[in-house]
């Protein structure tokens, strides 16, 4: 939208209004599109629109961001506890096995 400006003697777009209050964004003149202009839709490629997080991924994000003070290695559910327990048991048995082996090897047996 253009208007005649006496000061410049020319047609020009309206000046941006200086806002009365601090922090208010000045709004420029809106873009006037010619009638019949078509706008492209968000393009979907492959498995869909990638500007959105898929539902199954959003669910995971929510689960792991719950403020429940559970540490990350246990935050995924009961299977985490099972795996952690199994690892702990194996390490305990293994550590004992190592120490027992060191003790064994420290006293060589005499073979007659």
């Amino acid at each position, binding site marked *: 939208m253009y208007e005649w400006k006496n000061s410049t003697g020319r047609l020009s777009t309206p000046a941006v209004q200086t806002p009365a209050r601090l922090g208010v964004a000045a709004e420029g003149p809106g873009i006037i599109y010619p009638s019949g202009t078509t706008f492209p839709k968000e393009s979907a490629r492959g498995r869909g629109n990638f500007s959105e997080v898929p539902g199954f991924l959003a669910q995971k994000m929510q689960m792991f961001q719950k403020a429940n003070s559970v540490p990350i*290695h246990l935050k995924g559910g009961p299977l985490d506890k099972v*795996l952690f327990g199994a690892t702990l048991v194996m390490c305990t048995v*293994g550590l004992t096995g190592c120490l027992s082996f060191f003790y064994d090897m420290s006293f060589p047996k005499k073979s007659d």
Partner: protein
Amino acid sequence: MTSSHGHHAFHLVDMSPWPLTGSISAMMLTTGLVKWFHQFNPDLLFLGIIATTLTMIQWWRDITREGTYQGLHTKAVTIGLRWGMILFITSEVLFFFSFFWAFFHSSLSPNVEVGSCWPPAGIQTFNPFQIPLLNTAILLASGATVTWAHHAIMESNHTQAIQSLAITVLLGMYFTALQALEYYEAPFTIADSVYGSTFFVATGFHGLHVIIGSTFLSVCLYRLYKCHFSAMHHFGFEAAAWYWHFVDVVWLFLYISIYWWGG
């Protein structure tokens, strides 16, 4: 989700048991090896392998959770991860450097015990223009397909990313299968003079790295399928691609020096 410890871009991790279980597993592996050698009993070694595998799965699973699900991998954190991967690969380069040194030490000045010639007298070497050349083509092609996958991820082309990364993994498996066949059909063993030692130790460790790299890429393929990677942020994939290129380059050196020059 911002850092829970003050307003900074770094990631102070939750308390984790994996460094401890990893250390204990490493001791089980080494002590288990010694127990196998001295008492002919591999039980501690097998337990160590399982404990190490469980530690690795859970530790890397937790890193994925922290990065992808909790959003804690900021730009600063990613830079640290990049440096870490670069330094790790550099250490691996130095590891292989020592095996190449060993090879050139013995092959440039072959001693009288092997017949003062290289390859040593009586060793029937592989024809470098048969399976080894095919393996070279396979790894070079896989380097191209992993680059294709990277560009597809950056362009949000999910279909092509899955296809190209899947082809990369298949090529890696094809290489492993062919190399296993070569090992089975080899007319010489690791015990056949220093030729056998240098050949099987260098190519053997390389094959192990191909298996590690293929596993890393397979995990990335699964994560790609689950939409963990965005066009702008996919460092796990980049790390796997760097590792794969390193494996490819090591093979090229192996092929040129051990298979071709040394054959």
